[in-house]
């Protein structure tokens, strides 16, 4: 099963939220949809699930159009940042209805998870705290058993303990019943060990779409005294650079050099995803889809 997105654009008034985006979500992989606030991550996920309509472009699931196609939409569950439940609905009712709408929804698991997280099932959804709202959404998402699980800022308002519990449950769920998971977040360090494929979105455009390993192997960071760094990076493909006192760190495209070949005083290291992302966001120009 593949979600195929071709040339979609979306505008809200004067704001171009998405600009001619094309990408694919393949089967049984964990994707990271990364971007700053307002980059267009939520808009993209809302378009996939039909909550927003596109101005242009085509969305398909295995060649079937997704727009208002219940059978295709039923293969996708999206955990939204916003609440889309009626004001009077209680947690237990939401769980019951999820099992009506999603035939493979695991109601027993959902109730077990509510106990595990200490989620009060008799409370109305709007009366839950931000953290418990996130837990409620996580419970439904983990029990949905759909081939595609889209998670939009899933750990919003969660404390460290609950965040850790969520990531463990997500991995457990994925290993027991592999599905395609798309995690949209700006907490990159937390999902770094989880995501296999990165899609980085900036100003409504996908600027990187590649396996995380590939992305991180494409570049390296080098740090040392500013003057030495400036000399070293001359003529090289610079992703970005930053100064801290007399020290400078630069991120460069290309294979990491052998430490023996580096000038004395300089240190090269592998970039981590967060570092790569931060450097990429600093970078002025958009290089287009990979």
């Amino acid at each position, binding site marked *: 099963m593949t979600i195929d997105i071709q040339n979609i654009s979306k505008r809200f008034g004067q704001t171009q939220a998405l600009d001619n985006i094309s990408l694919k979500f393949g089967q049984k992989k964990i994707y990271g949809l990364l971007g700053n606030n307002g980059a267009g991550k939520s808009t993209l996920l*809302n378009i996939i*699930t*039909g*909550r*927003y*309509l596109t101005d242009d472009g085509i969305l398909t699931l295995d060649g*079937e159009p997704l*727009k*208002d*196609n*219940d*059978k*295709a*939409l*039923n*293969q*996708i*569950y*999206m955990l*939204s940042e*916003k609440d*889309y*439940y*009626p*004001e009077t609905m209680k947690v237990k009712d939401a769980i019951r*209805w*999820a099992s*009506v*709408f*999603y035939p493979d929804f695991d109601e027993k698991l959902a109730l077990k998870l509510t106990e595990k997280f200490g989620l009060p099932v008799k409370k109305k959804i709007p009366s839950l705290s931000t953290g418990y709202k996130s837990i409620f959404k996580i419970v439904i998402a983990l029990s949905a058993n759909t081939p595609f699980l889209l998670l939009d800022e899933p750990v919003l308002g969660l404390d460290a303990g609950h965040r850790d519990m969520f990531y463990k449950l997500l991995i457990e769920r994925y290993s027991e019943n592999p599905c395609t998971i798309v995690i949209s977040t700006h907490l990159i360090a937390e999902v770094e060990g989880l995501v296999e494929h990165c899609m980085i979105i900036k100003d409504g455009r996908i600027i990187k779409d590649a396996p995380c390993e590939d992305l991180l192997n494409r570049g390296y960071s080098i740090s040392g005294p500013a003057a030495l760094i400036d000399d070293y990076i001359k003529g090289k493909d610079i992703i970005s650079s930053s100064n801290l006192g007399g020290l400078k760190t630069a991120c460069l495209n290309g294979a990491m050099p052998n430490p023996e070949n580096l000038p004395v005083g300089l240190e090269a290291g592998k970039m981590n995803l967060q570092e790569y992302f931060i450097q990429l966001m600093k970078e002025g120009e958009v290089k287009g889809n990979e």
Partner: protein
Amino acid sequence: MNNMRLKPALRYQLEYMLEASVDFFGVIILIIIGLRLLAFFAGVNVGVSIDGVILNNINFNVGVPTVIMVFIVGIAGIREDIKMFLQHGIGRYTTYFSTLLGSLITGVVYGLMFSLIDLIPNYWPAFFVRGSVVPVEGFFMSWFLNIGIFFFTWQLGTVISLIYYRLNRMGQIIFSVAAGGIILFGVPNIVVRHVLRDGFDAFMEAVSNALVNPANLTLFVFLIGVLAAAFNFMLIRRAEVKE
């Protein structure tokens, strides 16, 4: 069409309608019992006024509040249903057809209920104030008319709700002012009357004469209900979830 999952959507809407109906009629029944008790303990004869307070409405006309309730359901329901359904993988077309069916089923059930209530005085006249006997042979026509009224009312509520839902703030203000103008000042009436003069009056008289006939009235109510439903289809096609 064959990709629609109508069953869970309709089940959701009907269950909520049932819940709303139980709440609503529960309150109505309490009010009726309260009024009856008041009449009994105050020793009031129905239709008599005490100190200027007229108690001749002691039986409480349930029809009008029910129509208002259905109208409110039409307004409030669609907005929550769009969000709830899109959250659960149900598209706009299913939302539309489910709402359409939901309003028709509600119309059929409520219509039957009220048509049967109308027949009760025939068999138990002492309990009722109005005393007028409803002809049994008119039962089905009365039922159809009631279905039409409830169906139209729900669809009208949904039209109004969706118009406001789809418009931006400026559009909402313009629509409110325009609609207010039309309702309060009868702008089209004045314009049409001015343009058509006597012809308009004759037309309106012909219309009201035609609608005196229950079959014509039923047909008319269904027709405007279908028009409202068609308008709803156009509005829902491009409706997006609002935050």
